[in-house]
């Protein structure tokens, strides 16, 4: 079941696969006799995964497959942050231990034809954030555009106008705009595949208020060449933009998440160096005979 975003309720991790499913999954995962169904024997990671397994298992619905570009980006991010064996690389820079990538819900991608330039620039996007848990705190959010680098471009500068729409719950899935806040960003796109637009300050208040659906309109205007030298409108180009993904960099504060900066926690976990043992115990546990010979040899 989707986890509540109620900050007071502790993050519940729902139960496991039922016993029969588990043993079908893998004999090693068969629960010991007498253990009630759903009792979580597995460490959190496997619990989460088998929980996912349970969802696609029970609901029978096939797991939604992610966008291939998004998958490529996240695989690249994984290689930057972890070794091949999956060990997190020691990055001083980042405090986040979770990165979530959401692609917009397809039913809400309306493209508006821009009256002036006649180009496709504006798109309506709806992101569903159900998977963000109550214990995951937002550190940074980014709109991620992937540009088709096969387009022969010297370089062009794009301006992005972003407006967020209040989600009027009574209305249909794609609500009308009740009010919006817009701001513009300039960034230069050279031969790059990915462009990240930092929208943290913009989305922070929405995500902080447990908003589960973020509905925004993004308006792009791109100028060919260097904006400082030519401002003629006829440099406008029609950049065939793929709707952006939303990247959330989060700090998961739950027990099972890795807190790289929390060195105190690690020190507490690893046993302190014990003091040199007093000989009292050494004598008692050894057989007198053996003990003496051993001690002599030592």
């Amino acid at each position, binding site marked *: 079941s989707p986890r509540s975003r109620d900050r007071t309720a502790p993050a519940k991790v729902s139960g496991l696969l039922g016993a029969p499913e588990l043993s079908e*999954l*893998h004999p090693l995962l068969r629960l010991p006799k007498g253990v009630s169904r759903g009792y979580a024997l597995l*460490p*959190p*990671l496997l619990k989460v*995964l088998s929980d*996912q*397994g349970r*969802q*696609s298992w029970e609901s029978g619905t096939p*797991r*939604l*497959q*992610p966008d291939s570009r*998004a*998958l490529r980006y*996240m*695989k690249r991010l*994984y290689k930057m*942050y*972890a070794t*091949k*064996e*999956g*060990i*997190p690389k020691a990055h001083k820079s980042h405090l986040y*231990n*979770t*990165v*979530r*990538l*959401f*692609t917009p819900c397809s039913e809400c991608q309306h493209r508006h034809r821009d009256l002036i330039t006649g180009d496709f620039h504006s798109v309506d996007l709806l992101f569903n954030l*159900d*998977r963000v848990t109550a214990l995951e705190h937002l550190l940074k959010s980014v709109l991620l555009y992937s540009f088709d680098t096969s387009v022969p471009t010297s370089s062009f500068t794009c301006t992005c106008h972003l407006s967020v729409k209040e989600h009027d719950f009574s209305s249909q899935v794609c609500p009308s705009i009740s009010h919006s806040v817009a701001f513009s960003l300039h960034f230069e796109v050279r031969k790059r595949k990915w462009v990240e637009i930092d929208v943290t300050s913009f989305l922070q208040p929405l995500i902080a208020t447990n908003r589960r659906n973020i509905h925004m309109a993004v308006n792009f205007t791109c100028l060919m060449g260097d904006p400082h030298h030519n401002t003629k409108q006829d440099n406008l180009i029609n950049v065939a933009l793929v709707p952006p993904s939303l990247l959330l960099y989060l700090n*998961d504060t739950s*027990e*099972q*998440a*890795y*807190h*790289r900066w929390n060195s105190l926690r690690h020190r507490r*976990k*690893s*046993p*302190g*160096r*014990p003091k*040199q*043992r007093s000989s009292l*115990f*050494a004598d*008692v*546990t*050894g057989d007198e005979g*053996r003990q003496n*010979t*051993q001690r002599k*040899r*030592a």
Partner: protein
Amino acid sequence: SRHRREENLKEAPATAPQNLSEYFKQFLFPQNECELHSFRLSFSQLKWDKWIIAPHRYSPQYCKGDCPRVVGHRYGSPVHTMVQNIIYEKLDSSVPRPSCVPAEYSPLSVLTIEPDGSIVYKEYEDMIATKCTCR
């Protein structure tokens, strides 16, 4: 009887220990002493590779072996471990001997696909055993 003794000597030549330290070792350390063992699994074996994109293989490691009777500083064991051994040996053998368990772990980064099709990179605590102890 002298003839029989000579016969026996011929049969079983004195095995002078080649390597003294090996010879003494049998007295100092239990044969299968508590130590870290490697174990590698691939998520495809568990049929979880549909939603675990990376890593492909995972080595959780594990601890196995007997705990020496006099558990010195090598294991970082608290004094309680020796007390438990004394209880087991001298007072009540239904009390279990100290067990060989992990003492330290390292984290694991996982890339998974969520049921709604979103993708998540997560770093989990305590997923790989890196050191054993007797407790």
